[in-house]
């Protein structure tokens, strides 16, 4: 739906664009602060609607010297965001004056950017997680924040986007502590990733974990988590209908049975 606009805000064709829906999307990104910095993790999948189209997508990258950026949502918009951030880091690099952009500045910049796009009804369809640490006046200051497509932004000790908001946040809330070690942090993050793998239909079993400390950033190579599907009710659903998760075998040729089952299910028997 293109109305005639002046086209000076990003495209040269003279038409005004409105983002209506995303096409290729990444699912949840989760992140948490720990003793030495920030851990961020997500899966490496990108879906085209309901199809798990791409299975080796890196949705977390390093920006500048001090920050990790991860995003869920439309992948092309994430690439556009990274292009904007690259321009910023380039300017810093060219100035060559010892000043560098920290995670807090990037977060603020992205907030302005995303909110501005939202106001033009042409959002960047992402939830972006920014984590990092930079030397401040009180020593190394850790930062973890999020910005989403409507410009909502906040800082927290642990963040999850997309499905992670519903599945991972409760786990973080009960198990996150200040000053966890890297091993403890990865264990907690893997716990969340596993739940997301089981319950988020758009996730895949291939994850990347990244960390950023005062020594720099590291994005680890992708790996898979061990999953367990050996539930008896799952392996043989009709064997014993009294087990949780099992299903009663129905004879579809006998309408009485099917009706009885229908009634039982609707009465939550």
């Amino acid at each position, binding site marked *: 739906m293109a109305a005639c606009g002046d086209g000076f805000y990003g495209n040269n064709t003279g038409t005004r664009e409105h983002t209506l829906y995303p096409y290729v999307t990444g699912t949840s990104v989760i992140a948490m602060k720990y003793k030495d910095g920030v851990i961020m993790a997500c899966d490496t999948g990108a879906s085209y609607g309901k199809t798990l189209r791409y299975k080796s997508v890196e949705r977390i990258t390093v920006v500048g010297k001090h920050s990790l950026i991860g995003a869920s949502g439309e992948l092309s918009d994430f690439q556009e965001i990274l292009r904007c951030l690259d321009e910023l880091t380039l300017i810093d690099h060219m*100035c060559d*004056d010892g*000043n560098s*952009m*920290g995670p807090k500045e990037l977060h603020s910049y992205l907030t302005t950017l995303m909110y501005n796009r939202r106001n033009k009804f042409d959002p960047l369809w992402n939830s972006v997680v920014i984590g990092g640490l930079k*030397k401040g006046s009180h020593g190394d200051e850790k930062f973890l924040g999020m910005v989403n497509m409507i410009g909502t932004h906040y800082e927290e000790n642990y963040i999850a986007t997309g499905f992670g908001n519903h599945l991972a946040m409760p786990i973080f809330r009960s198990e996150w502590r200040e000053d966890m070690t890297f091993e403890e942090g990865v264990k907690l993050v893997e716990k969340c990733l596993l739940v997301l793998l089981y319950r988020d239909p758009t996730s895949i079993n291939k994850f990347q974990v990244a960390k950023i400390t005062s020594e720099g950033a590291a994005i680890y190579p992708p790996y898979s988590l061990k999953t367990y599907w050996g539930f008896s009710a799952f392996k043989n659903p009709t064997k014993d209908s009294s087990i949780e998760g099992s299903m009663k075998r129905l004879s579809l040729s006998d309408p009485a049975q099917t009706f009885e089952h229908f009634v039982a299910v609707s009465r939550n028997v």
Partner: protein
Amino acid sequence: MFRNQYDTDVTTWSPAGRLFQVEYAMEAVKQGSACVGLRSRTHAVLAAANKAASELSSHQRKVFRVADHAGVALAGLTADGRVLSRFLRSECINHAFVYDAPLPVSRLALRLADKAQVCTQRSWKRPYGVGLLVAGLDESGAHLYYNCPSGNYFEYQAFAIGSRSQAAKTFLERRFEGYNDYTPDQLIKDALSAIKETLQGEKLTSSNCTVAIVGRKDDGTVEPFEMIDAKRIQEIIDSMEATEEAPASAAEAESSSMQEDKGTDAGTGTDAAPMDI
């Protein structure tokens, strides 16, 4: 400086490779009353000698806060200086809005210098007739820059501009090497002493100088850019004069030789073009 056939336009080069209009603009800076800036690793101080148009009027405002972390002292056409201060404030505010962080002082000085350069390369413009001492604090410490009408800028440990600034510069040249480790109070005292050098015998009081300071204390808290109030300046001046009376004879011999330097301000431009320095 002599009138010649190449000085009508800022866009006309002389055969010697000089832009006379820009050099004349730098002369305007030397007509303004003196300003002095100095810095340590953590603090930067600006001081200005106040000049009133007449006894009836208030004195010209020469020191401006540009942001919480930076300020300027100017010498020359104050109207131009006012406009540039507004530009600097606008740059700082815009940066803080987008990045939620203070604009690094080097970038601030760079933007000012680029703006000044534009006026040296347009036939329908003239250079700004004001020199600015930009002092500020950012994550890499305290900084002091001098921006001149030519569009050049340099970082300084200490500097003085305006009329009779050579006396202040001589004073600062003797002492600047220790400035990195000076306490804020020591910096203020040296700034006041430098201004005193430019007053040519006139008594230094809190009514004929302005002092401002910005810096970061040892515990990390930031002291935002602000003018020091007149009462405190007078107290510092009084304490300086009290200590001066003790080593009186050595100081007197030096100060009388410095009086002779004050007359030779205008002669810098005859051989090398000033902006090449």
